[in-house]
């Protein structure tokens, strides 16, 4: 029943003649880096579309950044509107400087009923701050949603306890503005569909006085697919011994498969791999087509980050390692013997 309603709402908007029940109108915070919209934001957009109403995107950044991203954002499928605001203060977009802008956009008289973003580091920092200022709760890392326009309530599901339980949470009509962040692996990223939505500029709400100052950003450079959206991932754990062994073992296999490289917390803590490669409850949550776990025992916190992968392959010396309980294909063996052989045979 709900599904029918949302399909109907996707048709060209026809204004109702009665004054009750305003349809949902989502504001989606579109993140970008280097002139490219983050794939997580494209998944957030897909989730926003499921509310069954209007969807307005918001692009924030320096003038140059906004100019570069806007044409791409305008073509995104599912957007019914697009707002942009630029200021030198928004590069990079720190929560202290961007939250006043969001507050202004969302303040009294705004048409918005939902505020949506990816569950990314920067949006996780921003959205709860804004929600608190507007005195509304927020829902983190949702994996599904359903909106009932007649009662103006939205029902979400979200993982709790490191994904070992799924909570169903209702944000009812007493919450006028529903904030939520979206688990990107749970929604298929929207594509550009050619039609172009009109972009409207919003005055920046600049912050005066001492603000948090950005000192530097250091990004891990890699030619490999981005971990969060890769369709194949080769991941290593503590058994990889050291950083050199980690790279020497995993890279050939990742190359052969065209995969991204991930790591368990143990491997990251021991310094074998960069922090940004950590898969798990406190790192990245991934759901690739193929996840190859090498020398990873499969602690609860690691499984939380990868157990929605389509095919899980595990190689581990310990036949009792918990990873084998979720692996579709398990091989009890020494990974240092298996991986080179595997690379050889994949190449054939």
């Amino acid at each position, binding site marked *: 029943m709900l599904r029918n309603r949302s399909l109907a709402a996707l048709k060209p908007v026809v204004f109702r003649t009665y004054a009750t029940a305003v349809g949902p109108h989502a504001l989606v915070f579109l993140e970008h*880096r280097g002139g490219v919209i983050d794939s997580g934001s494209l998944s957030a957009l897909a989730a926003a579309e499921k509310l069954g109403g209007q969807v307005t995107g918001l692009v924030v950044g320096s003038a140059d950044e906004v100019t570069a991203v806007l044409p791409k954002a305008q073509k995104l499928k599912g957007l019914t509107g697009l707002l942009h605001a630029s200021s030198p203060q928004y590069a990079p977009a720190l*929560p202290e400087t961007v939250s006043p802008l969001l507050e202004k956009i969302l303040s009294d008289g705004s048409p918005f009923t939902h505020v949506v973003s990816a569950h*990314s*580091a920067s949006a*996780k*920092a921003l*959205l*709860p*701050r804004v*929600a*608190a200022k507007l*005195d509304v*709760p927020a829902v983190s*890392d949702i994996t599904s949603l359903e909106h009932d326009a007649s009662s103006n309530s939205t029902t979400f599901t979200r993982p*709790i*306890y*490191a994904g*070992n*339980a799924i*909570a*169903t*949470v*209702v944000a*009812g009509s007493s*919450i006028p503005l529903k904030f939520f962040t979206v688990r990107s692996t749970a929604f298929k990223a929207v594509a550009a569909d050619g039609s172009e939505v009109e972009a409207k500029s919003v005055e920046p709400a600049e912050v005066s006085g*001492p603000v*948090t*100052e*950005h*000192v*530097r*950003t250091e990004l*891990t450079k890699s030619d490999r697919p981005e971990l969060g959206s890769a369709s194949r991932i080769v991941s290593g754990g503590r058994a990889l011994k050291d950083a050199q062994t980690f790279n020497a073992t995993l890279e050939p296999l990742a190359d*052969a*498969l*065209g995969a991204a490289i991930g790591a368990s917390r143990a491997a990251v803590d021991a310094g074998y791999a*960069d*922090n*940004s490669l950590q898969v798990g*409850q*406190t790192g*990245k949550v991934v759901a690739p*087509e*193929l996840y190859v776990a090498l020398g990873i025992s499969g602690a*609860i*916190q690691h499984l939380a980050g990868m*157990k929605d992968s389509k095919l*899980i392959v595990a190689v581990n010396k310990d036949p009792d390692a918990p990873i*084998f*309980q*979720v*692996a*579709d*294909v398990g*091989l009890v*063996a020494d990974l240092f013997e298996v991986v080179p*052989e*595997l690379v050889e*045979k*994949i190449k054939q």
Partner: protein
Amino acid sequence: MRPTPARLLNILVPVKRTIDYAVKIRVNPDQKGVDLNVKHSMNPFDEIAVEEAVRLREKLKDEIKSIKVVTIGPPKSIETLRTALAMGADSAIHVEIPDSAPAPEPLGVAKALRALIEKQKDGVDLVIMGKQAIDDDAGQTGQMLAGLMNWPQATFASKLVVDPATKEANVTQEIDGGLQEVKAKLPLIVTTDLRLNEPRYASLPNIMKAKKKPIEKVSPADLGIDLTPRLETIKVAEPPKRQGGGKVESVDELVAKLKEAGFLSKS
């Protein structure tokens, strides 16, 4: 007492009692929650927050005037406060709620913390707290508190350097794809990443000493706040089970499985 007119730093560390991270949780048959009759301990990110506060004092000595820990939770949460005191905090506040009360949500907790901060005679210069609790995995409270206080925030910190003279802090943050460093004026809210430090174990003498440290008990009503959740949790269910356990004997079999699944067609 130091004669300097400059005010010394007061640190507040909010902590939460959660199910121990190593426990495999079980969903109750009534699908209203999870079985809570299991081992509990301090939320791991909060241990890191306490540790960081104690390390700051070890580094800045007298410049840190106080380290106060606070928890909002049922009577048993007092154990979590004792643990934090044994790690080196000076005093604690327990905002006690009944066992039967629903778990407060991040906005309620943030409002309670704001009320507590406003009650501190000496003020609060730095709040260090976990980036998320491992039970609700919301990761919102620090940011919400920063919003309510209109203070700067530094989330997912992996390094914290405080300069008491300038009342500024440099914080390195874990962001998607790498690191970011920001400089912010105190008062500041910092949320901890796993990478920030390695928490210490409390020694027996310190555990004994912690028993004498003061714990102030207040009620939500004393703070003038209502912790009733505004979001309604209607169901807690088991996640779909994976059919694992398919083991193979050799690399050849493994390769065959990958082929079968279509992963090697291109190469």
